[in-house]
């Protein structure tokens, strides 16, 4: 076949392929989240002109920062082929602990002490899931409840408040701004950049993908599977501690249940970003996109006047949608009668 005729037939095939139903389905399945998001953004901008103003965008990003920081850590855990449902309750723990210690030993010592305690919890989970090979769903679901109990024991069930709210520099993490940008956003962005590099560019990141993609093959390649999973949970705990710090610093007082339910939102953001629950795929960048999508959807619903609690239902719908599109993308079609 001559080059020219081959090119012509390539072109014809290209057009046929673009038009075929199967292909359309495959594109929808793969880019479905982004398409749905675009439609959503346009609809809400038309419905409420305030939606896309810089002020509102900044406020969405700021209020997403806490979820976002936790989602960064959970991304590591999910790519390694595990789940972390304990992050919400662990964040309540961090918040309560740092507020309590703030008045007892001052912020300079309270912050590292809180980080150390949270990391211990992460290490414990990492030990159970990584070294003892227990099912991560069961372990972290159990820890969700156990850490809640731990928090209540610690606080005696009381709300925790800082005595001198005016006189402490502790508020900068949640309320401060630098160069006109709120500090929580700066923390989120810096952490995303750091962890994004760690995941995409370092040997450790490579190991996380390998362990999540095929744990046996990773073992046969000399990769310490248990230690890798363990480290992922440590990273997740460090992110939770950071989120707790932002939360505590923003409100300077807190209930014991401040993080309740956030584990699902975090997971929703990670899956929305396209990380597979089976492990081995996902990126930090995509998770950040997932966080923003979730933030904008929740904000948009508020702006059009829906009640706050509707978003719990919406979050659930989004998770289902994301999981569906995830498997649809693998099958290359939206719907298939056989698995």
């Amino acid at each position, binding site marked *: 076949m001559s080059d020219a005729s081959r090119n012509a037939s390539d072109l014809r*095939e290209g057009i*046929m*392929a673009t038009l075929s139903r*199967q292909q359309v389905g495959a594109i929808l399945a793969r880019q479905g989240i982004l398409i749905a998001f675009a439609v959503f953004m346009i609809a809400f901008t038309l419905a409420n002109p305030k939606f896309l103003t810089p002020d509102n965008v900044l406020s969405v990003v700021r209020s997403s920062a806490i979820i976002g920081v936790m989602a960064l850590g959970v991304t590591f855990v999910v790519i390694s082929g595990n789940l972390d449902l304990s992050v919400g309750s662990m964040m309540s723990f961090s918040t309560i602990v740092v507020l309590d210690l703030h008045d007892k030993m001052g912020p300079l010592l309270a912050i590292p002490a809180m980080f150390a305690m949270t990391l211990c919890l992460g290490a414990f989970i990492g030990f159970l899931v990584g070294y003892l090979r227990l099912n991560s769903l069961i372990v972290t679901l159990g820890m969700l409840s156990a850490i809640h109990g731990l928090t209540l024991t610690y606080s005696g069930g009381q709300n925790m408040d800082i005595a001198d709210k005016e006189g402490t520099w502790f508020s900068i993490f949640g309320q401060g701004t630098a160069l006109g940008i709120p500090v929580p956003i700066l923390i989120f962005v810096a952490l995303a950049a750091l962890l994004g*590099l760690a995941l995409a*560019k*370092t*040997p450790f990141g*490579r*190991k996380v*993908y*390998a362990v999540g*993609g*095929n744990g*046996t*093959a*990773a*073992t*046969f*390649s*000399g*990769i*310490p599977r248990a230690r890798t999973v363990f480290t992922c949970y440590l990273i997740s705990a460090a992110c939770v501690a950071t989120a707790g710090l932002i939360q505590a610093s923003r409100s300077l007082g807190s209930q014991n249940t401040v993080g309740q339910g956030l584990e699902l939102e975090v997971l929703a953001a990670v899956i929305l970003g396209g990380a597979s629950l089976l492990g*081995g*795929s996902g990126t930090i960048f995509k998770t950040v996109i997932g966080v923003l999508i979730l933030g904008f959807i929740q904000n948009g619903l508020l702006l059009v006047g829906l009640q706050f609690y509707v978003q719990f239902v919406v979050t659930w719908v989004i998770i289902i949608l994301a999981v569906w599109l995830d498997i649809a993308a693998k099958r290359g079609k939206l719907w*298939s*009668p*056989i698995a």
Partner: protein
Amino acid sequence: MTDPVLRLENIVKTFPGVRALDGVSFSVMPGEVHALMGENGAGKSTLMKVLGGIHQPDGGAIVMGDTPVVMAGPLEAKAKGIVFIHQELSLAEELSVAENIYLGELPRKSFGRVDWARLAERTNSILKKLNVGFDARTRVGDLSIANQQMVEIARALTVDAKAVIFDEPTASLTDAEKVVLFDVIADLKASGVGIIYISHRMEEIFKITDRISILRDGQYQGTVNTAETTEEAVTQMMIGRKLDLSRNASHHELGNVALQVRGLSCGKLYSDVSFEVRRGEVLGFYGLVGAGRTEIAETLFGLRDPSSGQILLDGEEVRISSPADAIARGISLVPEDRKGQGLVLGMNCRDNMTLPQVDDLKAGPFMAEGAEVAIFDQYRDKLDIRTPGWKQRVGNLSGGNQQKIVIGKWLSMHPNVLIVDEPTRGIDVGSKSEIHKLLRDLAAQGYAVIVISSEMPEVLHVSDRIVAMYSGRIMRTFTSEEVTEDSLIQAISGLGGDKAA
């Protein structure tokens, strides 16, 4: 002349960056065994997946009877009488043998309850025909790869088939299991079923097939009658050149003993195993599946704890506690199961290849990606790996090219002791002789090489000495001068050839 069971006309299929099939036509007659041959990545599996409804062709037609048909999916293909036994096993490990065989069409009682008794009975009657050593209730995950293969074959026998596709069915079967398989194929053939048979093993092709169709780089090269052709002619059509089968006979000096094993035992798996490998030597391990060869390799690689005995590396006794430890001591293992143990299918080619050395390929805190690409390129050229580039997911490569990635991965570690377990499983004749040569060359360069294989020609061809194992014990060690096929067969079946000999 009778009509063909099915005809493929001008099938075209492209993947991003690859033209896998470029106008392939061929037909299968009832009651014939039709071989499909070609190098790794030639498009054999892809063609069969088009026929089996797994891929949709970009052009061309499938004709059954007189009418073009569309295979919209695997179930539809099955309903039309096309049965596909895959190269890569696709069984549900957690389910029983019976459930796997009848998946989607389990026999029912009232209220949709599964009729377990009938299911077991039906399954066992099929298994009996196949003469296998497990029953309907066995969990598939507990079976060896060979036995899982038999389950796939059993699955094919449940439908009223017009055509049965075997994609490299014998790659992991023992000789005894092969005999059973060939009987099954003969039965199918006698009942007028058309059989498409893909394999890289010439001796099988010439034993059981009637016609051979050949693909090269996605293009149809022609069809020949098996009785009227020769291995050389077929090879020539496949790879476009003659094959050099001579053995690298350069007699180099043997170096010191790199690895010595004394009285090693591991529970019931093997006992009292002693052998040594020198630098510059290829030591072959031959035996039936289950003779304990793989388990010895896994012990040397730190994956199993021996219950007694000693391992010495360069004369020094060592305890190998983990694969990482083994790697650090210069041991490499090409494992037998590439999909389960060798590769992360979702990762790209380059990352798979450099996985064991991620910690050594650093530029500051980051991966030295340039160095990684260089390693990949080097072994792609050396092993002739066919892929559009290092970014391709390994799962998208053809079976044989996947195997080459695993080999490249471990060669690039420059080990002192290289252990390869079934190194050429699924590899085409051309590449196979390349790999054999490579193993000989490595020895000549001073590596100590251990080759475990269930293919007698392979062990005979590459080894300087051959260890024959039977049921966890070493029966005899042969030198390449004294070994004969008969004495080897005797030794591995536990007859004669005892240790004292």
